[in-house]
């Protein structure tokens, strides 16, 4: 199956000469959820804006559903829904009218049942006749989501949908994303919450300074980059790591009560068996052992640092 979103060497240089996208290439499969991670100013919003027609790319090309975003912009945009990063809504308009407006704008015939379903799903139905300015910040964000969903997009861009929202909305969001995934909607999500990407994305793309550093399957990324740590709690504390264990590069912590061993799951052998044998040969008795895997966040931070170096 051809990718539903295909970005080829997309470039954006803003009027002031700032190069926000330096030739981004990316392919997104239909039905997948891809999380775009990157620090502030990495170019996430610029990439989304270029794909949605809000800003004109200055080089390269892109397709959505096989339609070029410039030459067949109508067909391409009909498939796209966008929840922008910044809340932008007309303050004096009623919730239901602004949602209906969006549906019309995307060329869809009136469908009151669908609008009701979307508003109910977002717990906005009771507020349908309120004016936007009477809503709380989180509710406004829900309205933005409703506006994007009401024209039944096949590709949904969520630009930091959960920034500054409460736990409940975040959970609702994840549920909605899950429902959309089951309907086969492709979702491109930017977020600064790594646990969010970890929880809902199939693939992770990391972008920094206008360049994609990597795109990878989330699970594969975590095992590939995932370093594990084995923590060994000792029954009796030691002053220093015994010389015989030097080759394992252990960290001593907790007043000499515990040793940490870092290993790579990619390696041939992890060295754990030998380490444990060496420990007992040294006469150290163990109280407890546990392993932890580094989170996406640690992976992500180390990657950004590497690229900066």
């Amino acid at each position, binding site marked *: 199956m051809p990718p539903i979103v295909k970005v080829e060497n997309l470039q954006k240089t803003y009027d002031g000469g700032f190069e926000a996208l330096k030739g981004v290439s990316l392919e997104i499969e239909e039905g997948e959820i891809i999380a775009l991670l990157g620090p502030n100013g990495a170019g996430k919003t610029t990439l989304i804006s270029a794909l949605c027609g*809000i800003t004109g790319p200055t080089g390269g090309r892109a397709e959505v559903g096989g339609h070029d975003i410039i030459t067949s912009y109508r067909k391409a945009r*009909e498939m796209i829904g966008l929840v922008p990063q910044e809340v*932008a*809504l007309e303050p004096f308009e009623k919730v239901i009218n602004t949602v209906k407006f969006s549906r019309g*704008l995307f*060329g869809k015939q009136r469908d009151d049942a669908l609008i009701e379903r979307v508003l109910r799903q977002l717990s906005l139905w009771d507020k349908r006749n309120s004016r936007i300015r009477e809503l709380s910040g989180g509710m406004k964000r829900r309205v933005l989501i409703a506006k994007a969903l009401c024209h039944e997009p096949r590709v949904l861009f969520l630009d930091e949908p959960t920034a500054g929202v409460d736990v409940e909305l975040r959970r609702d969001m994840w549920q909605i994303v899950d429902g959309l995934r089951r309907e086969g909607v492709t979702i491109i999500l930017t977020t600064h919450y790594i646990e969010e990407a970890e929880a809902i994305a199939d693939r992770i793309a990391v972008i920094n300074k206008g360049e994609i550093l990597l795109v990878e399957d989330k699970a594969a990324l975590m095992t590939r980059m995932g370093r594990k740590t084995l923590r060994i709690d000792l029954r009796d504390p030691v002053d220093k790591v015994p010389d015989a264990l030097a080759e394992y590069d252990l960290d001593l912590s907790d007043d000499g009560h515990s040793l940490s061993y870092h290993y790579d799951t990619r390696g041939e052998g992890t060295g754990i068996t030998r380490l444990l044998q060496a420990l007992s040969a040294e006469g150290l008795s163990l109280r407890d052992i546990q392993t932890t895997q580094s989170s996406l966040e640690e992976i992500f931070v180390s990657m950004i640092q590497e690229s900066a170096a």
Partner: protein
Amino acid sequence: MNFPAIRAIYKYEMARFFRTLMESLLSPVISTSLYFVVFGAAIGSRISEVEGVAYGAFIVPGLIMLSVMTQAISNASFGIYFPKFIDTIFEILSAPINFFEIVIGYVGAAATKALLIGLVILATAHFFVDIEIQHPVAMLTFLVLTCLSFSLFGFIIGIWAENFQQLQLIPLLVITPLVFLGGSFYSISMLPPVWQTISLFNPIVYLMSGFRWSFFGQADVSVGLSLLAIALFTAICLGVIWWIFKTGYRIKS
């Protein structure tokens, strides 16, 4: 054509108008009434007649034009400036619509509002003076064309403007003087010859002349020339708007 989109924009804009219906209609009605009191009653009592028409009636087309032009410009410019100002323009830009559909929606709504206001002023004028419209179809045609072309012009101003002051600037600095100097309240033939020639460079003279002809059957310039002037003005505005959307001027970064 994306008709649902045109309808959506048009309805949305009209809803804004009806939300503030009283304010929208009240101010043009009041200011027109004031003009009647000042020009019609106070000054008109001394002028009595212009080209065989009672002065009170003579100024009616001018008053309608003045309101219709300013309203068309301010409605259309605000209609597109506001989404730019509050950033909701992103939705218009990301929708599957072309510039022509956007313009029909916004300009259509602004022109409708201006037309309604023009008709309300005409009705108000009836309270003050007797007027008979000799060519009602031509009158409506001129009125509709003026609403449309000045809404197009307003749309351009709304896109060009980067703040509220600029939004007010063109109507105040350009339109109002041109309307006053364009024979709204007098006949061009009343001016000294030099000023008559200069006036011919004022596009509003052509509109005014044609519009007044539809009321009283007299014109400063030929009716065909008047129509041509409106058509030309409309075409120029459309051309500028086409260029704006092609280049993304002041709407896309």
